[in-house]
């Protein structure tokens, strides 16, 4: 329980500090917000070309060793806390690295994987049922200072190619209809959009 509270504390603190209180409120208090669940068939991916603005970036799999050995570090403390929490929950993640700094990441859970990751709670309210060789991706993040250079597109596309290499057949996920940058990246990559779901939230109380 304590790691979860610590993770939440740093999340709230850093969102307010770096993005602002208004953004924090927008993410935690809403009524009738529309989520768009999506799926991507990994047999039809778009090419893995690296735009020149991403030439210095690398994508790597995040594991306990990478976090502990100090060679790479997270720009934000809350993302580091989340990474530990997600790894402990049996989830898997990829980070986008600029030099030695992890400036963004994306995570997935494999309900049928050998490590028996938790069933992600999003699957229930989104109405998604993963079959074998299908995974759910979630919580893609990019440091605010790094947004706007095609990094998000590169990270997500690389991530999908990597899942294909691991013989997964389909990936599910979702984005908020009012989150234009996320919507744009998903539509560029041609995710198939599923039936929309409305959601309400008052801080930690979520109603779907």
């Amino acid at each position, binding site marked *: 329980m304590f790691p979860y509270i610590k993770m939440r504390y740093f999340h709230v603190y850093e969102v307010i500090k770096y993005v602002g209180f208004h953004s924090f409120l927008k993410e935690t208090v809403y009524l009738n917000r529309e989520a768009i669940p999506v799926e991507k068939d990994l047999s039809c991916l778009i090419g893995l070309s690296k*735009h020149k603005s991403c030439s210095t970036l690398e994508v790597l799999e995040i594991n306990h060793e990478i976090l502990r050995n100090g060679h790479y570090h997270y720009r934000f403390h809350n993302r580091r806390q989340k990474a530990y929490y997600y790894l402990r929950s049996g989830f898997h993640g990829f980070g986008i690295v600029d030099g030695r700094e992890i400036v963004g990441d994306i995570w997935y859970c494999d309900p049928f994987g050998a490590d028996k990751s938790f069933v992600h709670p999003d699957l229930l309210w989104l109405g998604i049922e993963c079959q074998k060789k299908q995974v759910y991706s979630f919580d893609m993040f990019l440091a605010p200072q790094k*947004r706007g250079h095609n990094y998000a597109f590169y990270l997500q596309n690389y991530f999908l190619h990597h899942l294909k290499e691991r013989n997964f057949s389909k990936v599910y996920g979702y984005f908020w209809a009012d989150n234009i940058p996320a919507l*744009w990246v998903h539509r560029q990559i041609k995710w198939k959009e599923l039936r929309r779901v409305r959601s309400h939230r008052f801080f930690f109380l979520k109603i779907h």
Partner: protein
Amino acid sequence: MMIADHIREFILSELIQDKSITNLSNDESLIESGIIDSLGIQKLLTFIEDRISIQISDEDIIPENFETIEAIVSFIKSKMPRSTEIRQ
């Protein structure tokens, strides 16, 4: 000034970081070249909605509508009432 010129001027001044680029043709790909990325699309939509009184829904935000200046102009025209003017 035509709609295409307004869009071009905005893209050149606000979305292109390489300031050696001083012109853009109407059929140049804005997505493949990385000019319109996830943050760029947000700025462009705000610009269009501020300058032209049209409502853009999330269903409109597809790469086909923003691939080139030509595509953006034709998308804007399809959403514009005939009497609409562009604010300077």
